[in-house]
């Protein structure tokens, strides 16, 4: 399972570079996430924007990651689309996670209040 880590302001963004998190990949995904989240701070954002398909095993693996990070760390999700969003919605697991639609590198850069100009615009 290919993952890319990117440290943002106050969170660690982990992007999944495989296009499927399914039963065949679930264990590898959990193992890779354990390794990738070593030493992470309180917020971890899992970027699924390159993932086209997650089945119930993949969903369970993502829940497992959330559980092993808790309580010290929160797992949030970003970039759900298509059939990935559908599976989360059908199972109502989209109510369990904080889900960001936008590109993860901007998730943590969003200020509490919009700036008067410049930096936050266009997000």
């Amino acid at each position, binding site marked *: 399972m290919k993952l890319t880590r990117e440290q943002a302001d106050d969170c660690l963004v982990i992007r999944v570079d495989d296009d*499927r998190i*399914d*039963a*065949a990949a679930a264990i590898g995904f959990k193992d890779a996430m354990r390794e990738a989240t070593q030493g992470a701070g309180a917020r971890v954002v899992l970027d699924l924007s390159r993932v086209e*398909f997650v*089945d*119930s*095993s993949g*969903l*369970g*693996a993502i*829940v*497992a990651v*959330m*559980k092993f990070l*808790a*309580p010290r760390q929160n797992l949030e999700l970003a970039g759900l689309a*298509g*059939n990935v969003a*559908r*599976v989360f919605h*059908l*199972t*109502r*697991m989209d*109510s*369990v996670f904080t889900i960001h639609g936008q590109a993860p590198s901007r998730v943590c850069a969003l200020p509490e209040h919009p700036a008067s100009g410049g930096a936050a615009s266009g997000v």
Partner: protein
Amino acid sequence: MSDMSGQQPWVEDGGIGPQGETGLAEQRAPVATYPEARSVPKTRSQAALAAGRSGIEPAAPALPEMVATHRLVMRANLCAVRGTVVRAVAVFGPHLPEQALDDLEIVLSEVLNNVVEHAYAGLGEDSVDLALGCQGGDAMVTVSDRGRPMPAQNLAAAPAPDLTLPVAALPEGGFGWSLIRSLACDIQYSRIDGVNRLSFRVPRNR
């Protein structure tokens, strides 16, 4: 309304054809005597088939509910599930809207995962047979295996998991059947002479 059975067969798949043309349709070969996936006659889609370790064979005799126009044989392991689902979605590609193909991808992945992980778990890698066809524009699939019987409660609607539980108590499994029931209909299961058959319909319109 799409009708796969009357169309030119997918020639690139080795000839699906109406019943009887191939001379093999009259035989109902039990799953246990299917040839090894590698020895199944290959087609020009060989690369895709090899990835899923499945083979295309001429249609099995008509099932009561539908005329099967495609048959796939899959080795019962999780890597083969992936390629077989992709292949089955491609079979229905010209005939179903995108949303129905997405639904089929989800349902079939869950059904095949269940066969590998439950029906065959610990029994060794056997093969799984898929019969595909269209009926009234909907996708019809029958999955057959020689594994353990399926527990009857899988077909019954189960109460939804309590997602208000604390994180540590959230379920990591058990979502598969609720996905299948959400997206497929006419789900039927039978077991005859040691063969499990699970059939379902994925409607073209939600």
